[in-house]
Structure formats: C-alpha cells, structure tokens
C-alpha cells in the first residue's frame, strides 16, 4: 500500500506548490510555514482539490479520509450523540473516548473548541481507513489531551497516516519527515536520519542537535533520552 505524488503542481493565482514523492506505510509528519500549502496539499491528497498538473496515485488504498484543521467544518449533528451517530458509531463509547462522558445530550456547538476537536478526533480514529490525513490534529487541545491524542494516533493509526502540523511542544513518534519550503514538498527521509535536516524542528530538538546528538525520534522524551545518552 502506498500513496504516490507524481509531479503534482497545485496552483492558485501567483502561488504554487510542487510535490513529488512516495508515502509508504507509517506515520508521516509534514511541516511548513503559514501559507506554505499544508492544508491545500492535504485537501488535494484527500481528493477535494484537483492538481493543476501531475497525478496522485493511490496504490492499494481504498478507504481514505481527511480530518480538517477546524473541527466545526465536520460537525453536522445538532447534539453530540447525533454527531457521533453520523459517523456510524456508538455515542456512549465515543463520549468516553473523548472525555465527554454524560454529555451526549449536549449541543455540539455548546462544547468548547477543544472539546469539539476531541469529539471529532475520537470519531475519526474509531474508523477503519487505509489512508488517514490529519490536518492540525492537535491544535486547540490542552497539553493533557495533546499527549493523549499522540498516544491514540500512535496506537490506532491506519497503514498510511499523514500528519500536517506546526505543533511544537507535543508530538507523536513518527516514521518519516517531510517539509514544505520554497514552494516545494521535500522528503527529508525516515526518522531519525532525517531529523538533522528538519528546518522547522521544535526548539527542544534544535537544542539536542546543538549538543551534537540525534534523538531516536521527535518527542520530548526522545530528546531527554538523547541528552542522557550524551552524558552517560
């Protein structure tokens, strides 16, 4: 199973983004600056936008979905339980997963934004997908839930998971790093080899690299382990 971007070019007036590369099975982290085209690329891979040229090939991928940056875009159910049922899921279980036990009867838009994000992410992670595209899955979550969501993503991720984010403090362990810069998507490679060339790395990764060591992965715990290794 793999996703192939074949000389893809996405354009909008004067702006363009070129993307080529193979996304094999694993968790892929894609970073880039504001306006670099992360969400546009995510939508194109999900099939919501047609590339100006090139082709997106889905080899062995039959079920794919996109989680958009803003959870309110996904919300169709008036009540929390309606929203969960709209995904074909059982309200009680998902409410428990989302830390919303006993709140199935509440209106979806009465939830805080972070709670709505938890609800949406719990629904999407309960599905069965070959390719899951997550656009800013951690934004608006508090630090406790960022950690929980990272663990959930790592434990339940589909064969190919693309994680578009600029989160800097709490990240899941990933398999591959990609970065959008200068109008192109760059494959930095597998982790940990790719970490030193990651320009948008969180500050704690930069600090570890400045000590001359490369962490095994990109979480804060990996950075701590690398520091310990250096001092051992």
């Amino acid at each position: 199973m793999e996703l192939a971007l074949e000389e893809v070019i996405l354009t909008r007036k004067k702006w363009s983004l070129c993307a080529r590369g193979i996304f094999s099975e694993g968790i892929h982290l894609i970073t880039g600056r504001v306006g670099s085209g992360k969400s546009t690329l995510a939508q194109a891979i999900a099939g919501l936008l047609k590339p100006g040229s090139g082709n997106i090939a889905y080899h062995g991928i039959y079920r794919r979905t996109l989680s958009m940056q803003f959870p309110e875009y996904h919300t169709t159910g008036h009540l929390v339980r309606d929203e969960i049922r709209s995904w074909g899921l059982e309200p009680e279980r998902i409410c428990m997963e989302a830390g919303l036990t006993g709140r199935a009867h509440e209106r979806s838009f009465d939830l805080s934004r972070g709670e709505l994000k938890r609800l949406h992410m719990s629904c999407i992670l309960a599905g069965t997908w070959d390719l899951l595209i997550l656009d800013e899955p951690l934004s608006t979550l508090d630090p406790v839930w960022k950690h929980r969501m990272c663990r959930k993503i790592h434990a339940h991720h589909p064969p190919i998971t693309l994680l578009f984010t600029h989160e800097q403090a709490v990240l899941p362990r990933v398999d591959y790093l990609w970065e959008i810069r200068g109008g192109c998507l760059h494959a930095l490679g597998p982790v940990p080899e790719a970490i030193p060339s990651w320009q948008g790395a969180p500050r704690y990764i930069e600090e570890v690299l400045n000590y001359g060591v490369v962490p095994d992965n990109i979480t804060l715990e990996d950075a701590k382990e690398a520091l310990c290794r250096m001092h051992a």
Partner: protein
Amino acid sequence: MIVCTGLAFRTIAIRDLSIPSGHTCVIGPNGSGKSTLLSLLAGIEMPEQGRITIDGETPRRTDVGWVGEFPEDNLIFRTVRNEIASALRFRHLPDEELEPRIGQALRDIGCEYLLDARCKELSGGEKALVVLAAALAIRPKVLVLDEIDSHLDRSTAEDVQQILPSLSCMHVLQSTQNMDTAAGADNLIYLEEGQVRYFGSPEDIFPNLEDTPFYPTLWRFAAWSSHLKR
C-alpha cells in the same frame, strides 16, 4: 488595571480578580472557560452577575481589538485591504488615514504581501494574521488573542509574540495551549471549571504545575539539561 468583581456567566465564577497592565496569558484545560472569560473581558458577552472595569470603564466603552478562536468568523469583507479598513471605517476615520494605518498594521506583523489578497484564498494561519492586523489597526487599549498561536507555525508565532511588547496596548490578554508562550507573559491566569485556580507570574504559577503536562516544555528541557551537566 482590569478588575472583575463577583463575576458570573455560564460556567465562569470569579469573585475578585485584578489584572495589572501588560501581557496576561489565560491557560487551563479544554472547557475551563478561557474563551468565555476573554469574551467577557472584551465586552462581547455581558456578565449575568458582577462587573468588569478596565481602568474604570466598562469593556464596551473601551477600544478592544479582538482576535477570536475562529478566524473565519472575524472576516467579513472580500479583500484583506477592505477587511482591515473596515475596522477603521466603522470608527469614521477619514479616508486619507486609512492606507497608512492599514500598511502599518500589516508591516507590524510582517504581512505586507497580503494587502491585495482575497480573504477566502488565505490559509488558516494567514486568516488569523489578517484578523490580528485589523485589530491592531484601531490601536486598541486592550488586545484580546484567543489561541491565535494554534494557527501559526513556530517562526510566525514567535514573530507575533515578539511584537506584542512593542504595541501601545495597555493590556494584551491571550489564551494559549502553548505553555512555552505562556511562560513569556507578565501574568498568568490558570482557569479550572470556570474558576481562577492560580493567578500570578509564570515563575510563581508553573512550579505548581510541574507534575502536569501544563509545565512549559522548554523549562522542563532546560531543567534536564542543567541536571545532567551537574
């Protein structure tokens, strides 16, 4: 000084809170009332009980710049130029003052290149920056930022944080889920279930949160680093 007395609204219940001028970050778990408190302080919502004064005036009699958590909800006009101009036109500023103020607001946040862009073609982060520029254009006494950094990459978020002290606003009130950002504020409010659990400087408050994920990542990293050096 912002003074809240006997404040009650939805889940918010704050008996007494006095916020000195400067940069104040509001932190806390999802659903703790951060956005609700900010909307009360901005005068968007009116308290069911109690009162809020900002240097003796009510929030609705104070110039407040508002950057909400849903940037799209703040964008009304087709182009960035008209979006930022609208904040000034609603205040009946003469036309000749508009262009310099629009340009300055965009320059302040390093986004001059967006001047002629169409709002619907902006990325999520760019929308947040345009809303910020519109808020800055009115030169508000109080600037309220509701999780603006959740839409921004590290470099852009750091740029925004760097310009905040140079603004002429008496109060910058910001909610954030990035504790490293909160660590740079003058004051912190930690909300829990609508109540102020902690209020004070980051140096006073974060030690109470050291065993939780709310402790700043970079503080934790620095502590490990210095411990290992010893």
